[in-house]
């Protein structure tokens, strides 16, 4: 029999994985092009609504909606990138903030218009409901699924970035944009693809999040703070950093709440401030 804290910690990791999938895309785009995309969670929200609509109105199975959520967010993000974001790569951070927060505002209103302000519950397939017994611990099946997805995404991303030509281009562009251009790398296209990947992952995260945190039009703004925390604690542009930060935040938040519930509301921010004071560039950050 394992003590109950392990079960709690497992839930923390699962929650962390959700945050990881939601935030890793922003970490990479912020690190790569220095583009402050505060509309990141709007793409996540889009993925969530795609899943809801496909499941509820078209009776798609949950698993089939996940790639759809990914692609929908990726495609919309490419459109937005081509029409709006491109023009602002050289603009000030503040203009980028204003534009992207404006887009987030628009997404909130549009979501409220099409889907009303209601929560959008979905019914998970039977094999993701309930829990299994693991040495006396209850392990929620959906949470187990989240952990698997989180680890799979991490491995997939690391393999892509470390072992493919595209990954090499991304790394070169992150390290030194000017030099990458000099080497004949099409930095703009690299960025567009990375951006679409990041937004697609956000869309996937949004779809996965419904079961844990629900979905309503405020999603685009509400989870922005959490995503920014993961990105800054992990370090800009670092996949492993985001992964570590997500685990750290998930575990310390849950363990802290278990042992010192009085500090529940403070924990996540205390951990962030402490990590940043110790390592201003984040756990795996370079700058």
């Amino acid at each position, binding site marked *: 029999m394992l003590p109950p804290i392990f079960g709690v910690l497992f839930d923390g990791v699962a929650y962390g994985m959700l945050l990881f999938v939601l935030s890793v895309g922003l970490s990479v785009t912020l690190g790569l092009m220095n583009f402050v995309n505060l509309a990141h969670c709007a793409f996540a929200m889009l993925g969530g609504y795609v899943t809801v609509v496909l499941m509820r109105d078209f009776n798609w199975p949950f698993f089939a909606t996940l790639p759809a959520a990914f692609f929908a967010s990726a495609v919309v993000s490419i459109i937005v990138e081509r029409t709006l974001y491109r023009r602002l790569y050289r*603009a000030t951070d503040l*203009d980028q903030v*204003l534009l992207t927060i404006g887009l987030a505002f628009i997404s909130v*209103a549009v979501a409220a*218009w099409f889907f009303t302000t209601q929560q959008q519950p979905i019914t998970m397939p039977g094999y993701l409901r309930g829990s299994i017994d693991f040495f006396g611990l209850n392990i929620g099946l959906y949470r187990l699924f989240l952990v698997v997805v989180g680890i799979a995404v991490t491995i997939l991303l690391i393999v892509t970035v470390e072992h493919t030509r595209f990954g090499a281009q991304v790394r070169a562009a992150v390290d030194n944009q000017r030099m990458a251009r000099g080497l004949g790398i099409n930095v703009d296209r690299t960025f567009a693809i990375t951006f679409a990947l990041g937004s697609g992952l956000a869309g996937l995260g949004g779809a996965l999040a419904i079961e844990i945190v629900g979905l309503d039009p405020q999603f685009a703004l509400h989870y922005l703070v959490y995503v920014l925390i993961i990105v800054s604690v992990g370090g800009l542009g670092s996949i492993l950093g985001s992964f570590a930060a997500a685990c750290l935040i998930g575990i310390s938040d849950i363990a802290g709440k278990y042992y010192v519930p009085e500090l529940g509301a*403070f924990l996540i921010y205390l951990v962030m401030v402490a990590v940043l004071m110790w390592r*201003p560039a984040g756990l795996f950050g370079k700058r």
Partner: protein
Amino acid sequence: MAPPPANPQAYLQSLSRWRPLEIAFWLATLLPFWLFPNYLGLANQIAVAALFALSLDLILGYAGIVSLGHAAFFGVGAYTAGLFSKFVWGEVFTGLIAAALMAALFGYVSSFIVARFRHLTLIMITLGLGLLLHSAANSAHFITGGSDGFQGISMWKVAGLFRFDLYGQTAYAYSLGVLFIVFLCARRLINSPFGLSLRGIRENWVRMPAIGADSRAHIRKVYTISAAMAGIAGALIAQTTQTVSLDALSFERSADVVVMLVLGGAGRLYGGIVGASIFLIARDQFSGIAPQYWYFWIGVLLVMVVMLLPNGILGGLSALLAKWRRK
């Protein structure tokens, strides 16, 4: 435009001279008393938001410190003014000073942390500190009233003569007066040697130590001053509406003020005032039309401004003006 004077001292003096447009602007702030007597409540809220944005401008626009936790000082000022009226007395000006001092104290203490960081880390540190204070205020509901809001504020008549009326005449006059006085201080600060150092920090953080400047000391000082100003803004809202809610400390308030300032044009004295006015008037009008969907129109407004007038409304307009002059 007159050619710049040959004497450098006279030239620098000329930079801080009052321009006719400025005087016209401040005279125009009096117009709502006659033109929009039914909108003075909104006008009061704009004056307070403008003061808050002005305080943020000192650190964001002039020293390059982007803060997503500035509501902390607004909230400290609001709660201090509320507590002051409840436990000391209801006189407004002393309450205002108490709020400014308390916010300055919070600002001074946190400035030692803030001055050590830059960029995203700085943004997240300010955000973290702001949210910690928000949570603390929620937990301390025996003092703050928690999420139900602070109860029991009653204000004396301003200067013993004017009570806060339902039309908001006193409220607007009082807030506008305070805004103007604080604006004069900020204006002087910007045109001071200290203000020049702040601009130096914003323009080139790396060069400052190489000309012998202790940037962190400057940042600590401006952060404290800015906190005091934000505290005054918070106190104004507490005094003129006789309520304080936890929202005064919220992330949304911090984010809104950044949006207002950037919309108007950061690093320009009037940026915050213009941004606050346009944001709040637009919000009031849009939400009057569609209370559920005004976010859409505000979003469109922000996107349009970025696309058409980079660097905020004032920044974009002055760039357009410069272009037009050159032709």
